């Protein structure tokens, strides 16, 4: 609110945050956005953008006035047909959101996933032992992708055949939150086959006993959710549980490959693995953006967002807002990255965050045991996605002990 009583003029920008050059390198745009105002109107898309930590954090938690049910992408489900059946978690508001969220929070909660810790640590050690035999490797394909693809589909209880559909399916789902640009068009070419496979895996009989998927169906048997909801909740795991983790691991591996002093710190105290991962999630923000829709006229930082209009929250910009973080552009293990918004915040906060942290902790701990130094061995290449900040290739040289 303006202390002087002067109503702040609505600031607007022409820039396209989904243009390839900004997706490739978004930091300058994010700074421009933060400095332009608390709420900035993006003329190209007719949406109200937030880039400051304070307002992004508040927008994420204020589910009463900022709805997810009209879609958390640019498309407004009040007027536009969603490309797939909306998610019961991400694209739902209370009360419909309650039961699916409660079930998944239980299955993926910190207490429930303790049983995976030992096996995942062992899996990580085996993977690292094998990978570091070569002095140079691609940290994206051989670590950031290989580890989640090794442990997560098994934990869900997926069959072995067809797992290659997971990454392109998730990639398209995250592209589809943005405008219908070339990235979406390219993904759409093959989405039918990926979506068909993913859809098939959500059925009760496809899911191995003891996994997260079977646990979702058990919740339906108990009556905590309906049988119609169960497959869509399994689909949420498969959509949101793979690409995000892969890119978050890519982020932390890139961070260490470019910050040898921080790698030394982790080697000295491997218990920093958890902090390191969250600091990388803050620093790179693998999920960059999400939208909400105003459920009435909503005033944010002195600007009124009219009923039914879209609000675009830049998690990545908030996570580097100097109003909130000291030296925000520095990757620093002595920092407390707590309360970053890289996993979101509030009732829609990433329900799989403890899984992501456990995967990262397992992999980083195994790497810290075996790798004395890790450094870039070539030029890393970005993978462009309308929502995700990602690497497609991260050539590194490792010095194994």
């Amino acid at each position, binding site marked *: 609110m303006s202390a002087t009583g002067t109503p702040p003029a609505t600031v607007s920008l022409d820039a396209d945050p989904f243009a390839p050059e900004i997706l490739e390198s978004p930091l300058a745009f994010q700074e421009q956005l933060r400095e332009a105002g608390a709420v900035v109107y993006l003329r190209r898309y007719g949406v109200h953008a937030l880039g400051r930590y304070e307002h992004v954090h508040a927008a994420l938690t204020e589910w009463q006035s900022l709805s997810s049910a009209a879609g958390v992408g640019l498309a407004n489900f009040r007027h536009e047909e969603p490309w797939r059946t909306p998610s019961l978690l991400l694209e739902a508001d209370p009360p419909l959101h309650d039961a699916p969220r409660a079930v998944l929070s239980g299955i993926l909660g910190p207490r429930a996933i303790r049983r995976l810790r030992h096996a995942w640590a062992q899996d990580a050690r085996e993977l690292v032992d094998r990978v570091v035999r070569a002095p140079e490797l691609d940290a994206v394909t051989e670590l950031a992708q290989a580890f989640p693809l090794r442990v997560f589909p098994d934990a869900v209880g997926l069959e072995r055949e067809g797992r290659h559909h997971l990454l392109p399916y998730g990639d398209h789902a995250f592209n589809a939150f943005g405008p219908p640009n070339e990235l979406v068009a390219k993904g759409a070419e093959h989405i039918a086959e990926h979506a068909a496979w993913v859809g098939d895996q959500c059925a009760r009989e496809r899911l191995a006993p003891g996994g997260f998927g079977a646990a979702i169906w058990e919740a339906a048997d108990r009556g905590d959710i309906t049988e119609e*909801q169960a497959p869509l909740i399994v689909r949420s795991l498969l959509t949101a549980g793979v690409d995000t983790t892969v890119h978050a691991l890519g982020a932390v591996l890139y961070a260490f490959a470019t910050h040898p002093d921080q790698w030394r710190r982790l080697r000295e105290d491997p218990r920093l693995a958890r902090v390191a991962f969250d600091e990388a999630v803050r620093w790179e923000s693998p999920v960059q953006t999400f939208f909400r829709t105003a459920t009435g006229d909503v005033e944010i930082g002195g600007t009124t967002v009219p009923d039914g209009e879209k609000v675009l929250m830049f998690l990545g910009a908030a996570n580097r807002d100097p109003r909130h973080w000291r030296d925000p552009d520095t990757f620093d293990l002595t920092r*407390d990255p707590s309360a970053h918004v890289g996993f979101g915040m509030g009732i829609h906060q990433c329900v799989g965050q403890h899984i992501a942290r456990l995967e990262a902790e397992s992999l980083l701990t195994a790497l810290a045991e075996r790798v004395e130094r890790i450094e870039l061995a070539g030029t890393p290449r970005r993978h462009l996605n309308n929502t995700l900040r990602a690497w497609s290739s991260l050539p590194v040289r490792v010095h194994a002990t």
Partner: protein
Amino acid sequence: MAVTTFATSRPSGGSGRSAATSLRVDRKVTVADDVVELTLTRPDGGRLPDWTPGAHVDLVLDDGLTRQYSLCGDRWDPRTYRVAVLREADSRGGSSFVHDRLREGDLVGLGGPRNNFALAPATEYHFVAGGIGITPLLPMIAQAAMLDVPWRLLYGGRSRSSMAFADRLVAEHGDRVTILPEDEHGRPDLPSWLPDPSHGAKVYSCGPTGLLTAVQRACAHWPAGRVRTERFVAAAEEPGTGGRRFEVELRRSGTTLTVGPDQSLLQVLGEAGVHVLSSCRQGLCGTCETPVLGGVPDHRDSILDEGDRAAGDCMFVCVSRARSERLVLDL
């Protein structure tokens, strides 16, 4: 149209400052014989932790005496909790304290909210309330109405004047609601009121033990998971240090810290340079789980179930405190 002003309560970044675990009593009104309704807000006016119908909060009263009360307000108002408190004849301090001593403007400690009685999807709901057991059902009824799911309520009590919210329920919902004061109608005939278990129907009941036993007997032929009850228990937990000062020993770093009444454990740890990763700072997300090696935690989170709480081997340091004078943590 009214504009929702979007207050940005400012959570801190690195300092580890926690959400308040104290609530202020904004209003205290008598809503039936021996029933007062409390309206509770954060002293700074900020958002309260989110909750769902069926949830309860722990209110830490007086010298750390903890009582559980179902939330009976409207969660579309994120800055207010409502609870209704019955004066119990055999009160061990909690309810008589609320009735006789608690005043508007006073502070009470908060734990939770937690939900052991969540409203699961159904094609129709049959609600059965006994006395003050109406409280968790109020938000459930509002939700069923919002979702346009058919529902009905059987509400029994000693006498009409003892039955909180009965008039409002009848006024708002008409013949969906059956009010049965025992002094006028005797005890409800549950078997004839309850339907045959149609596909997808659920029964939710809260009240005294006698009522719940009767509901379970009348629903003995219903499939598992379709009849859900919450016992209205008045069990008070042992007095602990409540919101008071306690000591915390960090076994690995070999230091001992003191947590004052207005500080959170997370905050004290952060100021001592012991950074525990956290996120929501409301006891909701589970990020700041910390192993407990000794002492008895005062669990204020929304995550642990009764078994986990009794085990006492971990705690969420953003909101939880100590029941014992001293805690030992694996930090």
